[in-house]
């Protein structure tokens, strides 16, 4: 469980981790010790609450105004998944060029890709679409929960 907690901590911005990771881990361990001798239901509720809040908290921190303000292009690195996505995009461009050539030449207009690959591509697009919708849903729920209001806290009261 502690390993999973530490994995979720890595979802937070690096600066946030440097500042709070040790404290958060310590607080999580204390909480876990407190519920250790309680029923399975209480322990399950504790873990579910902790992991869910870590996940949504990381999203909130990643998309907070501060994170966007701190964004520095010089230190930016593309994630490894970008390589796969770019290769798929390149393959699609190649495919589109071949298809265009076939149509221009008036030759065989059937797909040059086997149906299995076409099906996989359509499936991949579908999965990406669903993931995008889930991500959008999570951000929308966070926005409706008012969590972003914390980042707009004013420093001086209007008396």
């Amino acid at each position, binding site marked *: 469980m502690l390993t999973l907690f530490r994995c979720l901590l890595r979802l937070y911005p690096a600066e946030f981790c440097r500042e709070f990771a040790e404290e958060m881990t310590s607080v999580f361990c204390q909480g876990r010790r407190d519920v250790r001798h309680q029923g399975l239901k209480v322990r399950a509720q504790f873990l579910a609450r902790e992991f869910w*809040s870590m996940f949504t*908290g990381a999203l909130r921190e990643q998309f907070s105004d501060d994170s966007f303000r701190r964004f520095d292009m010089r230190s930016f690195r593309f994630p490894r998944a970008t390589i796969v996505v770019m290769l798929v995009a390149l393959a699609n461009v190649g495919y589109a060029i071949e298809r265009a050539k076939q149509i221009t030449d008036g030759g065989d207009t059937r797909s040059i890709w086997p149906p299995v690959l076409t099906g996989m591509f359509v499936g991949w697009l579908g999965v990406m679409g669903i993931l995008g919708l889930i991500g959008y849903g999570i951000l929308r729920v966070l926005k409706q929960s008012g969590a972003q209001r914390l980042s707009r806290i004013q420093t001086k009261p*209007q008396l």
Partner: protein
Amino acid sequence: MGNLPLTEPVLLVLLSLAEQPRHGYSIIKDVEQVSGRRVVLSTGTLYGALKRLLAQGWIEHFEETENSRDRRAYRLTARGRRNLQVEVERMKQLTKVASLRIARKEA
């Protein structure tokens, strides 16, 4: 003030620190007790709120003799205390108006 009213977790965190400086886990336990176990803060929620309150200068780290990285205490600043008072006054005013209206309706 644009940020008032405060969300309930933030208000409870400030109330918890109004009494004395506290560590993270102590804040969670105190909030649980003050709210009659209705609000149970999780680690992610607490530290998200603490980070913002620190950035706004409403709370600060409290230096202790046995100061370790995984057990730091926080305390309310003068600015935080002032804002908490403003919020409590706002709630008092609202409660007063609500009580009057309910009493008038019952009469």
